[in-house]
């Protein structure tokens, strides 16, 4: 597949814009999926997917064809998603550590404050609940969890997409799983509708 993609990229660089259609077709569904899971909103997911392909197109000449195109486009998209998530946050010092919270920063405090009452959680459908729990994760855990569990990507590829050392990716996945465990201890998964 990489050979075909690289061939299309050369055609695009030679001025054949239509050759880009095939590249878009190959990756749009996966990219949209990641954006949707990161942002939790269909409209924004579409917006960012479109923006990612546009940026890739404009910067196609700088893409190193020895690497995987999917890694590159996922990287553009996850960066755009993280930017979007940060812009949505209120404008105070987000990275400031909150005293007495064992290293939690303001992001996780905001997420925690958006917690829904148990009665409301009980009424949620399984799929809705999954998205809700993802949306409560701090963004640095959210991206690794989405890439690992929604895209089922190997850790090495996640490390390339996010431009993080493999060890950092592992740590974030561990912390992400712990964060989800704590979030969900409020209402264990097995009680969610039994729709598994």
């Amino acid at each position: 597949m990489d050979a075909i993609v690289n061939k299309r990229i050369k055609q695009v660089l030679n001025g054949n814009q239509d050759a880009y259609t095939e590249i878009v077709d190959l990756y749009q569904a996966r990219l949209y999926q990641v954006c949707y899971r990161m942002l939790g909103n269909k409209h924004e997911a579409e917006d960012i997917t479109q923006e990612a392909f546009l940026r890739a197109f404009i910067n196609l000449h700088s893409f190193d064809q020895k690497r995987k195109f999917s890694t590159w486009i996922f990287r553009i998209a996850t960066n755009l998603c993280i930017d979007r998530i940060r812009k949505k946050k209120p404008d105070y010092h987000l990275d400031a550590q909150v005293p007495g919270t064992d290293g939690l920063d303001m992001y996780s405090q905001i997420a925690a404050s958006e917690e829904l009452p148990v009665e409301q959680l009980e009424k949620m459908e399984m799929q809705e609940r999954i998205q809700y729990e993802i949306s409560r994760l701090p963004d640095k855990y959210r991206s690794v969890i989405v890439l690992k569990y929604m895209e089922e990507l190997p850790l090495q590829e996640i490390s390339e997409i996010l431009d993080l050392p493999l060890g950092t990716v592992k740590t974030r996945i561990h912390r992400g799983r712990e964060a989800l465990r704590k979030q969900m201890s409020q209402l264990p998964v097995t009680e969610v509708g039994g729709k598994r």
Partner: protein
Amino acid sequence: MMGACHENYIEFMHAYLDGDIQPEQEQELKNHLKSCEACQAHMHELSDVVAFMKSAQPVTAPPDLTANIMASLPKRNVTAGPQSWFRRYPIVTAAAVFLVFMSAMFFGNFSDDQQFAFTKADNIIVEGDTVIVPEGEVIQGDFMVRNGDIRVDGAIEGNLTVINGQILNEKEIGNNEPLASTAVVTGEIEEIDRVFDWLWFKIKSGYQGLEDWITGDEKSE
């Protein structure tokens, strides 16, 4: 809260879930889980989290996503412009062409349109009928050249429109030369060669921004 002696086992649990645990550590973890209820519960909850995440159903992308993406790309094709415009809005376009032809303003401008002209900018050099954006110089905003050529050794952070002329260092694109070594234009590039395209361009741009132009004569004074 679990004691520090269990922290190690929690590390092992995560390594186990990621499939990169050493066999002897796995054995150690299993032995510990047999005797420690707290760790057993922890392991159980983590496994639930994983099962929960894996039960997520794929989200379907909107059916017109590819088409929308392709439509959002900057267009480089000169002739595609007026043709697709006509195809989509035949009556509107015909009416607009008629109005423009009838307008004295158009005829008034048309003779001016034969002159070498370009968008005002301080950091450019003009040699004959060629505008040069020197290396290291960056033009902020859209730039237009009419009846002349342009060479972009620096960069244009905006759209570049060349009417009845060409981008001199653009021909390297399409050979094996990397695009980065040629004209750097962050916005759209549009080359308009024929009177008809120029007309279409005027309709499309609604005459906007053309007042800012200066002619080659003014610049060389």
